Protein backbone atom coordinates (compact mmCIF):
# COMPACT_ATOMS: atom_id res chain seq x y z
CA UNK A 1 0.00 0.00 0.00
CA UNK A 2 1.52 3.33 -1.00
CA UNK A 3 1.61 6.45 1.14
CA UNK A 4 -1.27 8.33 -0.39
CA UNK A 5 -4.61 9.56 0.82
CA UNK A 6 -8.10 10.21 -0.44
CA UNK A 7 -10.11 13.24 0.57
CA UNK A 8 -13.77 13.88 -0.21
CA UNK A 9 -15.18 17.40 0.04
CA UNK A 10 -18.64 18.24 -1.18
CA UNK A 11 -19.81 21.85 -1.32
CA UNK A 12 -23.59 21.71 -1.77
CA UNK A 13 -24.54 23.85 1.25
CA UNK A 14 -22.90 26.24 3.68
CA UNK A 15 -21.89 23.80 6.44
CA UNK A 16 -19.97 21.49 4.13
CA UNK A 17 -18.67 24.45 2.11
CA UNK A 18 -16.74 25.53 5.19
CA UNK A 19 -15.19 22.05 5.45
CA UNK A 20 -14.42 22.19 1.70
CA UNK A 21 -12.32 25.33 2.13
CA UNK A 22 -10.75 24.23 5.42
CA UNK A 23 -9.34 21.21 3.54
CA UNK A 24 -7.31 23.44 1.23
CA UNK A 25 -4.73 23.93 3.99
CA UNK A 26 -4.33 20.14 4.17
CA UNK A 27 -3.90 19.86 0.42
CA UNK A 28 -1.31 22.66 0.38
CA UNK A 29 0.63 20.86 3.12
CA UNK A 30 0.49 17.59 1.17
CA UNK A 31 1.68 19.23 -2.06
CA UNK A 32 4.52 20.99 -0.26
CA UNK A 33 5.64 17.70 1.25
CA UNK A 34 5.20 15.60 -1.89
CA UNK A 35 2.47 13.45 -0.37
CA UNK A 36 0.19 11.93 -3.01
CA UNK A 37 -3.53 12.39 -2.73
CA UNK A 38 -6.75 12.25 -4.68
CA UNK A 39 -9.19 15.08 -4.15
CA UNK A 40 -12.82 14.14 -4.80
CA UNK A 41 -14.55 17.48 -4.61
CA UNK A 42 -18.07 18.64 -5.44
CA UNK A 43 -19.85 16.14 -7.73
CA UNK A 44 -16.80 13.87 -7.70
CA UNK A 45 -17.57 13.11 -4.04
CA UNK A 46 -20.01 10.36 -5.01
CA UNK A 47 -20.32 6.72 -4.03
CA UNK A 48 -19.34 5.27 -7.41
CA UNK A 49 -16.06 7.22 -7.51
CA UNK A 50 -15.22 6.52 -3.88
CA UNK A 51 -15.90 2.77 -4.12
CA UNK A 52 -13.91 2.46 -7.36
CA UNK A 53 -10.98 4.39 -5.92
CA UNK A 54 -10.89 2.48 -2.62
CA UNK A 55 -10.98 -0.86 -4.47
CA UNK A 56 -8.29 0.01 -7.03
CA UNK A 57 -5.98 2.53 -5.37
CA UNK A 58 -5.94 1.35 -1.76
CA UNK A 59 -4.89 4.59 0.02
CA UNK A 60 -3.55 4.37 3.58
CA UNK A 61 -5.59 7.31 4.81
CA UNK A 62 -9.11 8.45 3.93
CA UNK A 63 -10.53 11.81 4.98
CA UNK A 64 -14.25 12.38 4.62
CA UNK A 65 -15.84 15.82 4.86
CA UNK A 66 -19.60 15.69 4.80
CA UNK A 67 -22.74 14.93 6.65
CA UNK A 68 -23.12 11.72 8.54
CA UNK A 69 -25.09 9.61 10.95
CA UNK A 70 -24.26 6.61 13.17
CA UNK A 71 -24.56 4.38 10.10
CA UNK A 72 -23.27 6.42 7.18
CA UNK A 73 -20.88 9.04 5.84
CA UNK A 74 -22.18 11.20 3.00
CA UNK A 75 -20.81 13.07 0.02
CA UNK A 76 -22.17 15.42 -2.63
CA UNK A 77 -25.87 16.21 -2.14
CA UNK A 78 -25.72 13.93 0.92
CA UNK A 79 -25.31 10.76 -1.15
CA UNK A 80 -24.24 8.00 1.27
CA UNK A 81 -20.63 7.06 0.46
CA UNK A 82 -19.95 4.52 3.20
CA UNK A 83 -22.84 2.66 4.80
CA UNK A 84 -22.90 0.14 7.65
CA UNK A 85 -23.43 -3.44 6.48
CA UNK A 86 -23.01 -2.38 2.84
CA UNK A 87 -19.51 -1.24 2.00
CA UNK A 88 -17.60 -0.42 5.19
CA UNK A 89 -15.12 -3.21 4.40
CA UNK A 90 -13.69 -0.89 1.73
CA UNK A 91 -11.96 0.86 4.63
CA UNK A 92 -10.14 -2.32 5.70
CA UNK A 93 -6.48 -1.73 6.60
CA UNK A 94 -6.93 2.01 6.41
CA UNK A 95 -6.99 4.96 8.75
CA UNK A 96 -10.14 7.03 8.38
CA UNK A 97 -10.93 10.51 9.67
CA UNK A 98 -14.57 11.50 9.20
CA UNK A 99 -15.49 15.12 9.79
CA UNK A 100 -19.10 14.05 9.93
CA UNK A 101 -21.77 13.91 12.57
CA UNK A 102 -22.07 10.77 14.69
CA UNK A 103 -20.13 8.39 12.41
CA UNK A 104 -17.97 7.22 15.32
CA UNK A 105 -21.05 6.06 17.22
CA UNK A 106 -21.50 2.89 15.20
CA UNK A 107 -19.99 2.93 11.70
CA UNK A 108 -16.49 3.72 12.98
CA UNK A 109 -16.63 0.78 15.37
CA UNK A 110 -17.80 -1.58 12.63
CA UNK A 111 -15.01 -0.42 10.31
CA UNK A 112 -12.35 -1.15 12.92
CA UNK A 113 -13.96 -4.48 13.89
CA UNK A 114 -13.78 -5.48 10.21
CA UNK A 115 -10.04 -4.89 9.96
CA UNK A 116 -9.97 -1.13 9.60
CA UNK A 117 -6.75 0.04 11.23
CA UNK A 118 -8.21 3.06 12.93
CA UNK A 119 -11.13 5.43 12.81
CA UNK A 120 -11.17 9.01 14.04
CA UNK A 121 -14.52 10.71 14.16
CA UNK A 122 -17.28 12.22 16.24
CA UNK A 123 -19.71 10.18 18.31
CA UNK A 124 -22.18 13.08 18.40
CA UNK A 125 -22.93 15.94 16.01
CA UNK A 126 -19.92 17.88 14.70
CA UNK A 127 -20.66 21.54 15.30
CA UNK A 128 -19.10 24.90 14.63
CA UNK A 129 -20.16 28.50 14.50
CA UNK A 130 -19.75 30.89 11.61
CA UNK A 131 -20.44 34.47 10.71
CA UNK A 132 -23.41 34.50 8.31
CA UNK A 133 -22.00 37.62 6.64
CA UNK A 134 -18.91 35.59 5.67
CA UNK A 135 -20.61 32.43 4.46
CA UNK A 136 -19.48 33.08 0.88
CA UNK A 137 -15.85 33.53 1.99
CA UNK A 138 -15.31 30.89 4.70
CA UNK A 139 -11.56 31.42 4.97
CA UNK A 140 -12.14 35.07 5.96
CA UNK A 141 -14.47 34.00 8.77
CA UNK A 142 -12.67 34.63 12.07
CA UNK A 143 -15.38 32.91 14.11
CA UNK A 144 -14.95 29.64 12.20
CA UNK A 145 -11.13 29.73 12.10
CA UNK A 146 -10.50 27.99 15.46
CA UNK A 147 -12.65 25.05 14.33
CA UNK A 148 -10.63 24.76 11.13
CA UNK A 149 -7.38 24.81 13.08
CA UNK A 150 -8.50 22.14 15.55
CA UNK A 151 -9.70 19.74 12.84
CA UNK A 152 -6.80 20.33 10.45
CA UNK A 153 -4.28 19.75 13.25
CA UNK A 154 -5.38 16.11 13.32
CA UNK A 155 -4.78 15.55 9.62
CA UNK A 156 -1.59 17.57 9.30
CA UNK A 157 -0.11 15.84 12.33
CA UNK A 158 -0.92 12.44 10.79
CA UNK A 159 0.63 13.52 7.49
CA UNK A 160 3.76 14.54 9.39
CA UNK A 161 4.08 10.90 10.45
CA UNK A 162 2.76 11.11 13.99
CA UNK A 163 0.58 8.36 15.46
CA UNK A 164 -3.13 9.00 15.44
CA UNK A 165 -3.03 9.11 19.24
CA UNK A 166 -0.49 11.93 19.13
CA UNK A 167 -2.38 13.73 16.36
CA UNK A 168 -5.65 13.69 18.27
CA UNK A 169 -3.82 14.60 21.47
CA UNK A 170 -2.34 17.67 19.76
CA UNK A 171 -5.77 18.66 18.53
CA UNK A 172 -7.30 18.29 22.00
CA UNK A 173 -4.46 20.29 23.51
CA UNK A 174 -5.04 23.03 20.93
CA UNK A 175 -8.73 23.02 21.85
CA UNK A 176 -7.87 23.66 25.50
CA UNK A 177 -5.50 26.48 24.50
CA UNK A 178 -8.14 28.06 22.29
CA UNK A 179 -10.82 27.79 24.97
CA UNK A 180 -8.47 29.66 27.31
CA UNK A 181 -7.63 32.19 24.58
CA UNK A 182 -11.29 32.91 23.89
CA UNK A 183 -12.01 33.16 27.63
CA UNK A 184 -10.11 36.41 27.96
CA UNK A 185 -13.12 38.53 27.14
CA UNK A 186 -16.86 37.97 27.02
CA UNK A 187 -17.35 41.40 25.50
CA UNK A 188 -16.12 40.09 22.16
CA UNK A 189 -19.10 38.90 20.13
CA UNK A 190 -19.12 35.17 19.65
CA UNK A 191 -16.37 34.19 22.10
CA UNK A 192 -18.77 32.35 24.42
CA UNK A 193 -20.07 30.34 21.49
CA UNK A 194 -16.59 29.56 20.16
CA UNK A 195 -15.66 28.13 23.58
CA UNK A 196 -18.82 26.08 23.89
CA UNK A 197 -18.68 24.52 20.41
CA UNK A 198 -14.94 23.82 20.64
CA UNK A 199 -15.68 21.96 23.86
CA UNK A 200 -18.60 20.20 22.15
CA UNK A 201 -16.41 18.73 19.38
CA UNK A 202 -13.68 17.68 21.77
CA UNK A 203 -16.28 15.93 23.94
CA UNK A 204 -17.49 13.83 21.00
CA UNK A 205 -14.12 13.21 19.30
CA UNK A 206 -13.18 9.51 19.33
CA UNK A 207 -10.22 7.41 18.32
CA UNK A 208 -11.20 3.81 17.60
CA UNK A 209 -8.65 1.11 16.83
CA UNK A 210 -4.90 1.03 17.22
CA UNK A 211 -3.73 4.41 18.64
CA UNK A 212 -0.17 3.77 17.44
CA UNK A 213 -1.29 3.72 13.79
CA UNK A 214 0.78 5.96 11.53
CA UNK A 215 0.37 7.13 7.94
Amino acid at each position, binding site marked *: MSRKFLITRPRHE*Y*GVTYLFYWSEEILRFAKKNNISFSDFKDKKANRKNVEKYLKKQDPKLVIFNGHGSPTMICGHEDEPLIVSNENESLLNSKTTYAISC*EAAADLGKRIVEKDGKAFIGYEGPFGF*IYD*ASKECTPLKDKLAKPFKNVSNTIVISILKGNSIEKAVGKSKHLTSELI*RKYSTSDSEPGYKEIRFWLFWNRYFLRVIGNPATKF
Partner: protein
Amino acid sequence: MVDYEEIKKLVLIRLESMPPNIKVSIGSGKDLSREELVNEVKNESELGKLIIKMQLEYLRSMKKGF
Protein backbone atom coordinates in the same frame (compact mmCIF):
# COMPACT_ATOMS: atom_id res chain seq x y z
CA MET B 1 -27.64 18.09 42.41
CA VAL B 2 -27.87 20.39 39.41
CA ASP B 3 -31.32 21.66 38.57
CA TYR B 4 -32.23 20.88 34.95
CA GLU B 5 -34.45 23.97 34.67
CA GLU B 6 -31.61 26.17 35.95
CA ILE B 7 -29.25 24.79 33.31
CA LYS B 8 -31.91 25.27 30.63
CA LYS B 9 -32.34 28.89 31.75
CA LEU B 10 -28.58 29.40 31.60
CA VAL B 11 -28.46 27.99 28.04
CA LEU B 12 -31.28 30.29 26.95
CA ILE B 13 -29.53 33.34 28.44
CA ARG B 14 -26.36 32.35 26.59
CA LEU B 15 -28.10 31.78 23.28
CA GLU B 16 -30.23 34.91 23.50
CA SER B 17 -27.08 36.98 23.97
CA MET B 18 -25.52 35.46 20.87
CA PRO B 19 -24.84 38.04 18.13
CA PRO B 20 -27.50 37.72 15.41
CA ASN B 21 -24.92 37.25 12.63
CA ILE B 22 -23.76 33.94 14.14
CA LYS B 23 -25.06 30.65 12.84
CA VAL B 24 -24.34 27.20 14.18
CA SER B 25 -23.67 24.40 11.71
CA ILE B 26 -24.68 21.15 13.34
CA GLY B 27 -25.38 18.26 11.02
CA SER B 28 -27.33 17.66 7.88
CA GLY B 29 -28.49 21.00 6.57
CA LYS B 30 -28.98 22.30 10.08
CA ASP B 31 -27.39 25.72 10.02
CA LEU B 32 -29.28 27.29 12.87
CA SER B 33 -29.81 30.95 13.67
CA ARG B 34 -30.00 32.32 17.21
CA GLU B 35 -33.80 32.19 17.16
CA GLU B 36 -33.85 28.62 15.85
CA LEU B 37 -31.42 27.48 18.55
CA VAL B 38 -33.48 29.18 21.23
CA ASN B 39 -36.59 27.38 19.96
CA GLU B 40 -34.79 24.01 19.92
CA VAL B 41 -33.92 24.51 23.60
CA LYS B 42 -37.29 25.98 24.63
CA ASN B 43 -39.14 23.12 22.96
CA GLU B 44 -36.66 20.56 24.30
CA SER B 45 -36.21 18.93 20.91
CA GLU B 46 -33.62 16.15 20.65
CA LEU B 47 -30.99 18.75 19.76
CA GLY B 48 -32.26 21.13 22.45
CA LYS B 49 -31.90 18.45 25.12
CA LEU B 50 -28.38 17.66 23.88
CA ILE B 51 -27.41 21.34 24.07
CA ILE B 52 -28.68 21.48 27.67
CA LYS B 53 -26.77 18.30 28.56
CA MET B 54 -23.62 19.69 26.96
CA GLN B 55 -23.93 22.96 28.86
CA LEU B 56 -23.78 20.94 32.06
CA GLU B 57 -20.75 19.01 30.79
CA TYR B 58 -19.15 22.31 29.79
CA LEU B 59 -19.64 23.75 33.29
CA ARG B 60 -18.21 20.59 34.88
CA SER B 61 -15.19 20.76 32.60
CA MET B 62 -14.75 24.48 33.28
CA LYS B 63 -14.44 23.69 37.00
CA LYS B 64 -11.54 21.39 36.16
CA GLY B 65 -9.92 24.04 33.95
CA PHE B 66 -10.82 22.24 30.71
